[in-house]
């Protein structure tokens, strides 16, 4: 708390990011240990978690005060004007300190308390059980077994304790192979396709340099292809661009030489590295944050940022992977450099295309736990949870979510969850409110005792599941099938609801999803009502054969339905006062009710009059 010099500043103005006139809301700014809070004249609250702050900027003093621009990792941008420079300076310095913590123990998750007891917390952590998940896939089986080689993190620190490997791969082979792989990340099972008997395996790049080879590694690969009785050959996908992989050879790393490995088909897929992705996102945010942006600048900016090109590259790689398994029954080994960024993207997306289970709410959580959290995607470094090396920050997981979003757009009925679910997860990889995404690998998480000191996100999402359900889910054809997305360029679109989640003026003001959801629920409710009443009638009839009673009963229930309908339509039509609409900003509340607020945001089907500037302001003067 030593960082907080001022806790409250009055008469602060909040500007709309895209407004061309200088309309603003006036209110009071509060600084708490965990949040920045702005309450405007309508008592509307805007909460900003310190961990969400990506950058704070103090602009040059103006006549109305000192401008403070805060950019958040969830793509919210707020622009305050603080009347006194001194206050502004204090807040600026406090935020600089508060938004970058030096120690894990200072993160919000370690102080966050959703009023659960220890048993409930532990239960929450046990909700997703990966051993159960491997069992669901059908391992261990006659070809694959659980290896205890990494039980004490001796072979690879960044892998989980439980690893599945081909049954015929002995421990010396595993140890030998791990020495030949970057960071000891030897080939292990990521996903097993039961009916095709093919596997997705993952690892890091081999330390092949220009000519080195390793017999154990070659044996391990052979064991993987032998574990697949359906197909003799296997694919090895290097997700890097060929040039990058070649350059790595000079540093004693590199890629598999097809001559040394029998029966492999080697393939580069050309996804760029974390640094390219970081600067691509940076460029994208610069473009879409511009005020008064023209259509041409937007599209040329979108093009030059390369963001959608990268998304397409990830998607193409996942499709290649899924096809190899679904069409050729061939096992695939995926790696990049260290095998925790691009490899996670491709393996998880590929499994999502193949297995409908991962397209359910719970299955998606399992997928993230498996391919991202357990296999050591460095969440804390990539999301910049702590004050560390800015070069380690990269939107790799955000890209994964965006790919999934694109899939939901192409297959509107194939996913049990909706866009809000993806946005909520994105919110929490940065929030540090829950323990799931803290740390860079399982070993580190155990050392931090996260399961004892923090809460898991998943039970909270499941409790609120209703908000994240896709009402259109359930067409049999899309539900069970292997998804074959079309990746022609037209199908890639700017994800407005991600990048402008908090810019209300850019949103469509009515949400279809919630209406359909409501209707669906009402249908179900009414149907059960009908059944209830029917059985009631039956019972009564059995008791007394008096027909009049059942008629009465009938009449007494009829008025219910129109009333229900009336409430529904009333809700939709609730009109907002004109001034209220500019309350563009709204956000994460300190406690867990963040979800509900968010969903309300989305559901408000307000046909409201919004004061937008189309140039009248300028013309009247």
């Amino acid at each position: 708390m030593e960082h907080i010099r001022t806790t409250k500043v009055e008469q602060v103005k909040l500007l709309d990011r895209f407004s061309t006139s200088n309309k603003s809301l006036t209110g009071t700014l509060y600084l708490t240990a965990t949040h920045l809070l702005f309450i405007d004249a309508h008592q509307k609250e805007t909460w900003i978690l310190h961990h969400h702050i990506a950058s704070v900027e103090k602009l040059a003093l103006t006549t109305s005060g000192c401008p403070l621009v805060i950019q958040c990792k969830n793509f919210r941008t707020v622009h305050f004007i603080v009347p006194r420079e001194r206050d502004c300076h204090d807040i600026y310095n406090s935020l600089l300190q508060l938004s970058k913590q030096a120690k894990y123990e200072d993160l919000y998750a370690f102080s966050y308390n959703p009023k659960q007891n220890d048993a409930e917390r532990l239960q929450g952590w046990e909700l997703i059980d990966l051993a159960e998940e491997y069992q669901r896939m059908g391992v261990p089986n006659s070809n694959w077994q659980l290896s205890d080689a990494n039980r004490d993190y001796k072979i690879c620190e960044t892998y989980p304790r439980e690893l599945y490997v081909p049954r015929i791969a002995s421990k010396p082979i595993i140890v030998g192979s791990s020495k030949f792989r970057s960071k000891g990340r030897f080939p292990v099972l990521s996903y097993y396709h039961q009916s095709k008997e093919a596997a997705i395996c993952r690892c890091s790049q081999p330390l092949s340099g220009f000519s080195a080879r390793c017999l154990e590694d070659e044996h391990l690969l052979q064991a993987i292809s032998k574990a697949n009785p359906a197909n003799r050959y296997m694919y090895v996908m290097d997700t890097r661009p060929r040039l990058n992989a070649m350059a790595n050879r000079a540093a004693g790393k590199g890629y598999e030489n097809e001559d040394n490995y029998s029966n492999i088909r080697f393939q580069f897929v050309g996804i760029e590295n974390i640094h390219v992705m970081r600067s691509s996102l940076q460029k994208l945010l610069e473009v879409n944050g511009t005020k008064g942006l023209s259509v041409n600048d937007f599209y040329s900016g979108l093009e030059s940022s390369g963001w959608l090109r990268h998304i397409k590259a990830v998607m193409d790689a996942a499709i290649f992977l899924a096809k190899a398994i679904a069409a050729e029954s061939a096992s695939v080994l995926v790696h990049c450099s260290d095998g925790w960024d691009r490899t996670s993207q491709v393996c998880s997306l590929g499994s999502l295309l193949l297995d409908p289970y991962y397209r359910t709410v719970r299955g998606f959580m399992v997928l993230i736990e498996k391919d991202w959290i357990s296999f050591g995607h460095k969440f804390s470094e990539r999301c910049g949870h702590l004050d560390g090396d800015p070069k380690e920050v990269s939107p790799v997981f955000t890209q994964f979510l965006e790919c999934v979003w694109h899939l939901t757009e192409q297959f509107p009925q194939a996913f049990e969850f909706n866009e809000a679910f993806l946005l909520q997860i994105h919110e929490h990889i940065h929030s540090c409110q829950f323990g799931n995404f803290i740390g860079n690998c399982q070993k580190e998480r155990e050392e931090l005792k996260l399961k004892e000191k923090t809460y898991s996100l998943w039970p909270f999402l499941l409790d609120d599941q209703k908000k994240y359900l896709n009402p259109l889910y359930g067409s049999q054809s899309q539900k069970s099938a292997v998804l074959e997305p079309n990746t022609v360029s037209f199908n890639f679109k700017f994800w407005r609801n991600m990048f402008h989640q908090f810019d209300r003026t850019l949103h469509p003001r009515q949400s279809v999803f919630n209406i359909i959801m409501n209707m669906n629920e009402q249908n179900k409710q009414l149907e059960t009502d009908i059944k209830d009443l029917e059985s009631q009638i039956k019972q009564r009839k059995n008791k007394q054969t008096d027909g009049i009673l059942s008629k009465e009963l009938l009449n007494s229930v009829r008025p219910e339905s129109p009333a229900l309908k009336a409430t529904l339509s009333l809700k939709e039509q609730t009109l907002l006062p004109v001034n209220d609409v500019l309350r563009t900003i709204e956000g994460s509340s300190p406690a867990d009710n963040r979800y509900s607020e968010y969903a309300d945001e989305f559901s408000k089907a307000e046909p409201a009059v919004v004061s937008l500037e189309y140039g009248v302001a300028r013309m009247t003067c």
Partner: protein
Amino acid sequence: MEFAELIRTGQAQAELLRGPEEPPLRGTLCITGHHLLLSPEPQATPDLWLLLLRNVDSIEKRVAGDSGTITLRCKDLRVLQLDIDGVEATLDIARSIEALSSLESVITSFPFFYRPKGLRLGDAWHFHPPECYYKRVARETNAWRLSEANEDFSLCPSYPRAVIVPRAVDDSALARSARFRQGGRFPVLSYYHAPSGTVLLRAGQPLTGPQKRRCSEDEELLRGVLAGARPGARGFIVDTRSPQAAKQARMTGGGTEAKAAYPGWKRLHRPLERGRPLQESFVHLVEACGDVEQSMDRWLNRLESCRWLSHVKETLSTACLAAQSMEQEGACVLVHGADGTDSTLLITSLAQLILDPLSRTMAGFQELIEREWIQAGHPFQLRCAHSAFSHARPKHEAPTFLLFLDCVWQLGRQFPLSLEFGEGMLLALFDHAYASPFGTFLCNNEKERCLCEVRTRTHSLWSGLSQPKEQRKLRNPLYVPNPLAIWPSAEPQSLRLWQGLFLRGTRPPEPSEVAWEKVWQIVTDQEKTEGSQPTDSASEPRP
């Protein structure tokens, strides 16, 4: 009938290619005066009416060996590919299609022959005359009257017989104002916004010329408009050209209102693209949408350089400006460009959709199109003579109406509950505007329609669209009446390419159609469960 002379071969054996998913369909290809049809081989299957020949925008023929291939690119942006047996047959069929699809004459066109079952000639033609709209206006104010000064189309050939004008202005003043406006299009009422008591007017440009002529009757008319609204009311003249273009127009006899001559009115320039550049933008966009192989960067680059979405943005924000001036500034608005038959109508019709809840209903939208596009004299025949595939040199073609539909689509995307009609309606309007069995979009204005007797000799599209079997396609299942103005966002991030239209030919639309069907199902389920009651069988006592 002279069609027979144009048909070189009536029949040929052919194979219709139906994309990579489905097998080609083999059968006998037949050409009639207006249609191309295919009788599939097994005789039991019904004939397939491939298309209206009028719909063909360009033909590409290729011969190899003893067979040929014809690719028909249609005005509705669909592409059809036929493999035909025999080189001669291929060439003959191609030549016949070419000749028949480019017939200029209106009265030999298909609508004059189309006699569908269940429809009566003359139905729905008198659905939307200006009198109906006047009745609505008269209920709110008596400052306006219905003038029949244009009864014989002598004042303005592109106006309907009756127009709504300020009560204070008599017919002789109208005649003089008409002479001072391009095409005789003197300012008339387009929309009365009851909550603010303001009006939306449209006109042609004033013929000020290099001498800066004035016309006192025209000035009186606009003064009357302000006086009729409320004391001290102001007005905005939205000129859809740039200040330079408006100034240049003076050299050719046109021009724009001088400030001093029209006190209380303030001029705003909001340049909108029109004519050939707009057509080229359309052509480039469709070209880009046809290339499935291109890289991400190339696609984004082409999407940018065709400028189509820029036009959508400019149009929407100008319409919002007009609507906002009325609703929030309480000012009257007069819109004109040069002719007042293209971008002017774009703005006035969109402003009404934004402000007027009635125009967002199924019937109201049809009325809007009838009143603000067809009767207001948008030259459909000239503008829609060719679509994006034609190799002919563009003369008067411009996709102004398509731009309007695209803007409405954007509105519908941002307010998915507020329009009673769905995307299907917009697509249908696009199709029918370019080639239709109905007479609604024939000719360029009311005068021509009267001469051709369109109203008595063809069927109206509106009666065609009111058929019960069409409703599921056309309606928005989620519609909830919304009494407020709907203000769209015109930021580039909020606009999207209308994939349902522009990617028609390249993208299989199945998943979204299935989803749409599911939405319908949920909505109808809802109606069913709400209306249902315990079944009889349940109320019977068990034995």
